[in-house]
């Protein structure tokens, strides 16, 4: 994460994980959450991590976000950038308006007021919520709240976006539209996205590359490039075919855990 560790490879790698291991607990209660996970994400790449419960998907994102330290291995984010993290819940601050929520990361970076106001307006336009800046989070629907959270994360001006099942709690129609929106913003802003989901179709709809994680411990067991041209539809046969293949692999993996 320090500039001194930036190598010439950073031009081709936005996020690099090498041999990342995470152990929770001590003594007899030790749990191996992640086992020697190595992964290189190219700049501008959209990578979906798919796995059943207990595969350490969220742990992985926390480690990349720097909210937790790995027990072993290295994580490098190009140019020392601090990735933005989104959760399944919007995690908005209920005591602030929509505008003020988006403004928080700008304030924390010490950006002057006039510039902040401009940035907030621009970000709210990006997520199509320009008219809702004065509302409070509880006055919005789930999908709108998640878009506010996206605008707030984009306010970090980071090239790397980490998303932890961000659309998991939304209805199918809202989710479809947000897939289009996320794809548009990802293209417009040249973002690198690491997206965790247990929804295989969602992964096939969004990803350049799908990575399958095993459960307990979390290991990378399989990955595939998704060559379907964009824009995609979640109900297109190509997307469905990829999803079917990932589902089969996932079922085999889950079956290994049968008692």
């Amino acid at each position, binding site marked *: 994460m320090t500039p001194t560790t930036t190598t010439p490879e950073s031009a081709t790698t936005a996020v690099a994980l090498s041999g990342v291991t995470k152990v929770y607990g001590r003594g007899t209660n030790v749990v191996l959450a992640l086992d020697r996970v190595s992964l290189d994400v190219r700049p501008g790449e959209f990578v979906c991590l798919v796995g059943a419960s207990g595969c350490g998907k969220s742990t992985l994102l*926390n480690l990349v*976000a720097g*909210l937790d330290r790995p027990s072993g291995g290295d994580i490098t984010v190009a140019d020392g950038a*601090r990735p*933005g*993290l989104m*959760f399944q*819940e919007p*995690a908005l*601050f*209920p*005591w*602030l308006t929509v505008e003020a929520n988006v403004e*928080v*990361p700008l*304030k*924390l*970076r010490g950006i002057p007021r006039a510039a902040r106001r401009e940035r907030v307006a621009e970000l709210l336009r990006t997520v*199509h*919520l320009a008219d*809702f800046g004065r509302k*409070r*989070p*509880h*006055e*919005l*629907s789930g*999908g*709108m709240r998640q878009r506010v959270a996206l605008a*707030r*994360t984009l306010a*970090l001006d980071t090239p790397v976006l980490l998303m932890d099942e961000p659309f998991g709690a939304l209805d199918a*129609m*809202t989710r479809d*539209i947000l897939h*289009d*929106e996320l*794809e*548009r913003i990802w*293209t417009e802003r040249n973002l690198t996205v690491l997206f965790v989901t247990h929804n295989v179709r969602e992964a096939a709809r969004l990803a350049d590359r799908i990575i399958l994680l095993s459960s307990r411990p979390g290991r990378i067991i399989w990955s595939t490039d998704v060559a379907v041209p*964009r*824009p995609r539809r979640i109900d297109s046969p190509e997307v469905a075919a990829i999803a079917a293949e990932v589902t089969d692999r996932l079922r085999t993996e889950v079956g290994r855990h049968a008692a």
Partner: protein
Amino acid sequence: MPPDTLTRTDAELSGLDALEIAGRQKETSRGARIWAATWPKLAALALAVAIWQLVVLSGWKPPWSLPGPLVVGEELLRQAGSAQLWDGIAVTLRRAAVGYVFSVAVGLLVGLAVARSTVLRAAIGSMITALQTMPSIAWFPLAILLFELSEKAIFFVVVLGAAPSIANGVIAGVDYVPPLLLRAGRNLGAHGLGLYRYVIAPAALPAIVAGLKQGWAFSWRSLMAGELLVVGISQTSLGAQLTYARELADSPWLLSTMIVILVIGLLVDAVFGAADTAIRRRWGVLDQAGR
């Protein structure tokens, strides 16, 4: 992405937003709201006065020890026109304010320190709760030994009564900050003081206000107990007036002073209640409860 797809998504998105938001706003007029909150209180007050009058009419106690509402009301009006009552209110409120402000400072600092440090929490966390259960009047013998019959004795007990509640409010507030908000705040770049300013303090505010409200109740009670016991240093405090009224067997004076004490307590409580409601409305807790 072709332009027609883009506009389609935009239209869908705003259509969905409009559908989701529709029907969430329900406005009642300000007057109607105030009336809805006021009339039950007025009715309860009328009922209480009526019961009081009935007890007096029943002749359970002689009128010189239990006067009726009319006599007490006249006395209250007479008192309101004299300097004595207002002097008493001024003395008592000054003591309350000084004691409470000091309690808030002590409570906030101690609460914050205990919430942050595991060592301090292990050391005095449970002691703060124990202090809270101690009836404040039980402190007075010690306070009088330490400070004699003085303002300091009253101040000492008021602070001991209020500060633990306030500290407990702070501790509870910091403890119950949702971990998700902490993670979000840290990811957005808040560390150390920034995390306190932007996440922990506002998230803990409802519990802190609850602690401040309880702290006020405790300090007000301690103050009244103190003014009843520590008489002689000031002729005019509300507590001292209660004592003199009893010694002179002037029951209208006694009851009218009690009403003044009750009303002051209610007014301050209403301020805290308004703060609490404002916070809950901002957070959207009231709307979810269907109010």
